[in-house]
């Protein structure tokens, strides 16, 4: 039962970023980023740490100054708008709840700044606290709450002001795995219900795939690819995206005619998708779950099982090919260590370079 | 409205200095109540219309304060400090002549200072550290090597102390620089005269010099000290007072200064404070030997020479 008004007082906005660059001293943290977030969309910025995703989010909030470029809300340039005038909800990684104020006071703060009448504040705060199921603890201090409750309180504080745009900076990274999964569905459902535009920063690709309408994968201050979760996972534009999102195998080799020839000379006649000129291809990519174990004539590669990990719903094997290259393969069945097996590769994507090695 | 008036009154009182009404004397003193109290009480009894305000501090502090305030002096009179101090800061003082200067043992030809009391500066040993057989009878014995084992000798650094200057200048004049050089090499210099006195009293050193009035009081209290008037010579220190140039109440200050130098004031200094008067017609406290019976070393070389030689010898 909730009396929180889910009809939006302010319509969701679009956010356009054009040639955005941010500089910290000598360091160019963002290099010419172009992105458009559509109204009502749950948009995720995904990337390894240091890729600039948080910097971009903070720039939208107005906490960073742009060295170049512009950010527009609904076509209106906000570069000169002070952060406290942008009317944005922001959920921080460490929640940033004020320890000296109760949960109620924390959530009510934004409404007080907007000079909302006292009785309306009480009503709206109660509404949003019910929505996040914290009505019982309104009078307690943040220090008395569990991590998950604090996270929901931080979310309530950000949405109670009816922001047309909500920014979330890795809001779940401080929580344990199980709670993360539950809460991210909760956040998704709430955002859909509130119908506001949300930009969500995470380094967890699984989380990004689960909740996003669209994802921008970022690397070294640039956008590597923008797309729906399926586009990002199935058709990565670059070996970096392929490698960062999900598990990936890369086989070194070249394109000869319509086939892919590995470094050790094995010829693979499979459907090829190319991300560049055929002559520039240096490696080919395939997901572990796409490789099939088989010993019949359709097997194209042979290798020795070196190691196996069990994930409950599937096994993941590390298989060494001749010449030392290793492939990850997922199956429903167990394979004995040391067994020599054949594999079928249904398709490959060619990239001009191996992904940057990751630690 | 009432609150406003009160606020203004308060603000005004916070900003105000002492209201300088007539009949007030501001005295900067290097002495505590034990020295000034009795004389001031007698003065107040005689001049009920004059308020005496005391600001007490260390000698060097007070002279520097007068110097810093010279543009707009707050003090009328400085009381205490050696005549060397008054000579260093002579520009800050106005002449004042006591009517009975003729009987004074020490006189400033420019009358910038007046002698308040004088004290001979005998040796003082710590009796816990030194047994009677080892008491020195002459200054010459200070050079004896035995003092290193008994706890050492302290001497106030003439760079920091008028007392130190008087002693070194007197010894150099009376005993010669060969002796004095050896002495300066031997002693531990203290940063002022009080540290020298207390070092011997507290047994931190076996031997030093002392102002006789203090030494006499300590002996009378049964503290482990013994004053010895060396037979070969000792120095005399003068404790002075002076009229601050441009002070706000010179007339009343002169009355107080005259009272301090008067027979009545000097008798109080002798009887209550137990100090020796610089006036020849006021006899010393009973327990102190007559000055004339002592072989006195006068001050010969000037401050800058004594300071420079002392520093030179110490840094060799």
């Amino acid at each position, binding site marked *: 039962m909730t009396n929180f008004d889910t009809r939006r007082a302010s319509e969701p906005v679009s956010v356009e970023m054009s040639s955005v660059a941010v500089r910290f001293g000598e360091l160019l943290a963002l290099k010419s980023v172009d992105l458009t977030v559509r109204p009502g969309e749950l948009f995720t910025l995904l990337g390894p740490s240091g890729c600039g995703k948080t910097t971009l989010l903070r720039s939208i909030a107005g*906490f960073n100054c742009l060295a170049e470029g512009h950010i527009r809300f609904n076509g209106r340039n906000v570069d000169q708008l002070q952060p*406290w*005038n*942008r*009317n944005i909800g*922001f959920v921080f990684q*460490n929640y*940033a709840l004020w320890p*000296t104020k109760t949960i109620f006071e924390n959530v009510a703060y934004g409404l007080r*700044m907007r000079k909302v009448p006292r009785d309306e504040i009480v009503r709206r705060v109660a509404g949003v606290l019910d929505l996040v199921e914290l009505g019982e603890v309104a009078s307690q*201090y943040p*220090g*008395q709450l569990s991590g998950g409750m*604090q996270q929901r309180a*931080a979310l309530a504080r950000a949405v109670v*002001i009816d922001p047309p745009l909500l920014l979330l900076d890795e809001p779940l990274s401080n929580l344990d795995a199980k709670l993360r999964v539950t809460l991210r569905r909760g956040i998704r459902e709430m955002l859909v219900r509130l119908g506001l535009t949300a930009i969500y920063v995470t380094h967890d690709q699984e989380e990004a795939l689960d909740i996003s309408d669209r994802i921008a994968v970022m690397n070294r201050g640039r956008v590597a690819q923008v797309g729906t979760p399926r586009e990002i996972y199935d058709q990565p534009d670059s070996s970096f995206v392929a490698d960062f999102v999900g598990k990936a195998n890369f086989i070194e080799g070249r394109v000869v005619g319509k086939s892919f020839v590995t470094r050790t000379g094995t010829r693979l006649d499979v459907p090829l998708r190319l991300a560049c000129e055929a002559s520039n291809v240096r490696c080919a990519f395939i997901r572990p779950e796409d490789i099939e174990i088989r010993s019949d004539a359709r097997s194209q590669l042979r290798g020795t099982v070196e190691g196996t990990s069990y994930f409950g719903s599937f096994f993941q094997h590390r298989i060494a090919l001749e010449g030392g290259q290793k492939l990850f393969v997922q199956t429903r069945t167990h394979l004995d260590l040391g067994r020599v097996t054949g594999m079928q590769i249904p398709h490959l994507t060619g990239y001009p370079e191996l992904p940057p090695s990751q630690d | 409205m009432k609150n406003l008036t009160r606020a203004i009154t308060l603000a005004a*009182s916070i*900003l105000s200095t*002492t209201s300088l009404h007539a009949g007030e004397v501001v005295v900067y003193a290097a002495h505590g*109540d034990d020295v000034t109290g009795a004389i001031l009480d007698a003065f107040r009894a005689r001049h009920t219309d004059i308020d005496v305000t005391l600001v*007490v*501090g*260390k*000698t*060097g*502090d007070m002279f520097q*304060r007068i110097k*810093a*305030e010279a543009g707009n002096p707050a003090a009328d009179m400085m009381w205490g400090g050696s005549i060397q*101090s008054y000579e*260093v800061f*002579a520009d800050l003082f106005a002449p004042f002549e006591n009517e009975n200067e003729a009987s*004074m*043992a020490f006189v400033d*030809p*420019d009358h910038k200072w007046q002698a308040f009391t004088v004290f001979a500066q005998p040796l003082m040993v710590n009796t816990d550290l030194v047994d009677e057989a080892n008491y020195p009878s002459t200054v010459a014995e200070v050079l004896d090597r035995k003092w290193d084992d008994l706890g050492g000798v302290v001497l106030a*650094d003439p*760079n*920091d102390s008028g007392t130190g*200057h008087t002693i070194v200048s007197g010894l150099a*004049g009376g005993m010669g620089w060969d002796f004095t050089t050896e002495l300066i090499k031997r002693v*531990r210099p203290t*940063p002022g005269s*009080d*540290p020298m006195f207390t070092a011997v009293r*507290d*047994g931190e050193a076996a031997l030093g010099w002392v102002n006789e009035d*203090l030494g006499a009081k*300590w002996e009378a*209290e049964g503290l482990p000290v013994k004053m010895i008037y060396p037979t070969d010579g000792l120095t005399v220190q003068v404790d002075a007072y002076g009229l601050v140039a441009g002070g706000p109440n010179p007339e009343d200050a002169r009355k107080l200064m005259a009272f301090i130098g008067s027979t009545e004031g000097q008798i109080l200094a002798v009887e209550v404070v137990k100090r020796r008067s610089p006036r*020849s*017609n006021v006899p010393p406290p009973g327990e102190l030997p007559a000055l*004339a019976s002592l072989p006195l070393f*006068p001050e*010969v070389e*000037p401050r*800058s*020479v004594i300071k*420079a030689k002392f520093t030179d010898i110490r*840094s060799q």
Partner: protein
Amino acid sequence: MTDIWKWFATFCLVGATLLIVVPQAWIVAASFRQAGGQFTLHRDADRLEVVRADLKRFGPVAETTGAARLLRDEDELTLTVLPNQRLSIDLEGTPFVESLGTNRLRIVNGGFDFRVEQQAVRRIHLGAFAQSTDGSRKTVQPLVAKVVPGGVVISHAETAYLTFVDGRTNWSIQNFRGFLSTSHYMEAVRNSIVITVAATSVATLLAVPLAWLLARYTFPYRTLVVTMVTMASVSPPFLGAYSWRMLLGSSGIITNVLGMEWSILGLHGVIWVVVWLIYPLIFLTTLDSFSGLDPTLRESAQSLGASRLRAFLNVEIPSCLPGIITGAYLAALTAFSDFGTPFIISLDLTVLPTLIYSEFLSEVGGDPSVASTASVVMLALATGLLTLQRLLLVARSFASVTSRQSFLERPSVPVRTLAAFLSVLMLGMAFVPHVTVGVTSFLEWRVGTVTGNFTLQNYAGMFRTELASIFVSLSTAGAATALSLLFGTSIAYIIVRKRYRILSPALNAVVMLPLIIPGTVFAIGYILVFNDGPIILTGTWLILTLAYFIRKLPFAVKTSEAVLYQIHPAMEEAAVSLGATPDKVFRQIVVPMMVAGAVTGSTLVFLRSVTELSATILLFRPPWRPMSAVIFEQTISPGSNFGVAAALSVLMMAILYVPLFLLTRRRQKLEVAQL
């Protein structure tokens, strides 16, 4: 873009400049003014001798029995003996002469501005009841100068010393060269550094473990220990250091009972006493840090298999370094600028503060250029310390204070034993002065030494002193505390958060200066600026308040800074994103979270203002006479009645400690309410 903070920062910097830099600028200026030099001649009959020891800048080029030629850089001076105690001085141009008294005169020409002073043997006129040393009462021949063609002829007393001091000064770095090449001065520098480093290290090693134990575990007397360490951060003025000497001096009470051949006087004793003086500063800032630390940091380390000790060393200490460094910095500066302890706990140990004191305030006239040079050297060393502190802090990322509060654990027996041992040791040592003063206030004092006789006379004497001084002390210190609370927290905020390119570091440096300017030097600066001219404040209530506020402001700034370094900036950004303007963020979000640091800082400011002595002595004037001055008056000479001073000290401590005790109790209750 209007940034209200930038305006405020500018206002603070201008104010700090007017109240700190301008009054003290004379020191720096003086350090770069080279004195004109001096020489002394000894005239004995026809002989003229240059006194070798007393030559500054002048050097003799030729000396015959009847004349002396002296050279200073390019300037040459020839003095020739004339009959009848006269001396001719060759001077170019038309010299100007002026008599300054019987023994003093001034000679000025284009190159020199000499002050000449003669000293003949000082006569002792023993008058009617004795003989004078030479049997007659002659007046000294006055020093007189007359301008003649080609110079000046002076006539002087018989066998006189004539000291020539050139008052002209010029810009030069010669003072620093001289300072650095004089072993006596460099020894003072070395002693200062040894005391500072040794005392701060020992104090840190003692204070940090105790702070940690009290921040993590629950003990029956936990609150009491915290309160008492706060109390220990001040010691009774003057008598504090003296207590150690009374107990552990060569014939101290304890030394005598144990029959030791030992004395606390010396470098070792200074370090010992300073340790107990400064550790409360480290303890208090560190305790705030440990208490505010996100417990998950430690818990995560422990979950990774770190033992309690390893978590302490590898996680908690690094995370709390801002607090530890701040405390150690304040402690180091306090040790570095301490004058009283080396003065009382040694006979002849020279450190920078005592060197500066004796050269500025020598009763026989010091050398202001040495004093100012030493001050600038001290300033440079302290700036080095400040830079070190900044570098160490900047290298630390912000330790996050999350909303989770750590709850206190029950200690095991070894932990409890260790905590009890440390508490008893450290409180015991810190309160030695207080207890000694307290006990001796009930004993009879005679001519500056304590006896074994019980008496209440000291307290009777106390009531005869000016007790209105209590009001003066409390009102000036109270006002100074209020000001430093207001400006301390906001200046800390400008330094830590705003990070303006020039304003923030400038403000930081300027505000910290008073901590290392000796109180007497500070006060002289205030007299020079406020005794004359447009604003006359000397002798007022306001100048004491201002002096306390400015001198103790560093404590408020630094303790607030330490807390700010631990508040994650997201706390403020959260408010900004919700529509709070920067001033509201500060007032409504930052200030409430800074309360812990601000209470510590304000307490230090208040306690230290009430017990301030060195600047007070030069600045107060009745009726605005604070308690510290009244206490000091009772100890002015070695024959004073220290008993009344002891009783007054007990009264002062009681006045300070009762409200402090209540305040700490209240704070503790607040913490409990929030759990």
